[in-house]
């Protein structure tokens, strides 16, 4: 048995609050600070709201529901989100370095607010062909 929770929901902003609540539910028993939780929620929202990613997903036939897999590893919370069109995450990262947001694109945003960002294929059977992104937030020991 692993300490993980999976959630699937439509690619529709009406359901994103549900995803954020579930993240909060996982973070609370970890004694994650409000600061850190808010960061992780913002990171997830930014991916879900990202227009380029959404457009690529639509062009790829929608890619079905969004899956969010939250896993507690010692002193960190991992959030794997998928799937996205293959290559679309890298494109979003590259573009954000030079785009009109003046460097404050997806890459800088994520690297500032979470401790680790990993892009790869889905790790479990049934994860589909698309890409997944895994965000890791460390839980700092309370002072």
């Amino acid at each position: 048995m692993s300490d993980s929770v999976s959630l699937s929901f439509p690619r529709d902003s009406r359901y994103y609050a549900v995803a954020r609540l579930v993240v909060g539910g996982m973070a609370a028993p970890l004694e994650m600070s409000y600061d850190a939780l808010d960061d992780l929620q913002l990171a997830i929202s930014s991916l879900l709201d990202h227009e380029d990613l959404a457009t690529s997903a639509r062009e790829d036939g929608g890619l079905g529901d969004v899956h969010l897999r939250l896993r507690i590893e010692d002193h960190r919370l991992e959030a794997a989100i998928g799937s996205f069109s293959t290559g679309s995450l890298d494109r979003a990262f590259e573009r954000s370095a030079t785009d009109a947001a003046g460097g404050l694109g997806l890459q800088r945003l994520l690297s500032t607010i979470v401790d680790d960002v990993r892009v790869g294929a889905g790790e479990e059977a049934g994860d589909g062909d698309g890409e997944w992104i895994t965000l890791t937030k460390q839980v700092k020991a309370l002072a």
Partner: protein
Amino acid sequence: MNRRPEDIIVTAGLDPAIQQDIEENLNEPVRRPTADDKVDHQLLYAYHHDGSMKAREQLIELYLPLVRSLARRYSYRGEQLEDLVQVGCIGLIKAIDRFDIERGVELTTYATPNIIGEIKRHFRDKGWAVRVPRGLQELNVRLSKLIEELTVQLERSPTIAELAKASGATEEEVLEALETGQAYSSVSLSSGPGGGDDDGDLDPLESLGSIDEQYAITEDRAVLGPGFAALDDRERFILHLRFFEGLTQSQIASRVGISQMHVSRLIRRSLQKIKDEIGTHE
């Protein structure tokens, strides 16, 4: 006997006994208005004393321009003017129904705060993109203060469990209440500074912190790109501190002099603005 309110002014300085006499006369039941009286007075009397619903309707129509002008003052907040006029009318009707004809005040004086009150209540209740139960809204406001207090007290950002303990709510309630803070529609958050609105929570722009000389750092719009140009100085400064200087929300909150929850909202709003701005250039 048939004294009008303006007579009171004339009595100032008169013999106290005479003054008292006049005041007593004024307290007598309101006379039936004559054709010489103001139309609204006649209508109010017809409605309140004779129960004429037609008079009530006419009163509503008579004061519709007032509702309209008050609603217009609030319509820039992204609400449809017609919606606000409807809401304002509810305030007007309440004012007409509750108006005490014997008090000698003008209906306009009494109706105006009622209409504005109703419009404000509408913003408070409907200004949320998702309808949020009042209890959670209140908890959200309380949490905003608690986060600040606990951050100072603990010298770090509090956990959900600590917030639950301090607020007397469950962890689930705390999480839900924090989430409701994000249910604020982007319209109410991004509208301009509100004139004369004391609902500070609706409009973060009104609770500005102190001016920081460091705002100037982010002035170089050419370097920061056109997305940043859509932001005001404070928003740019906060994004700069968060994403280019790596300060935490609580550090930014104490530096800029606003609550941490407010910083969180401003960051979300600013990112949304950048997104919208870039969107319009493509």
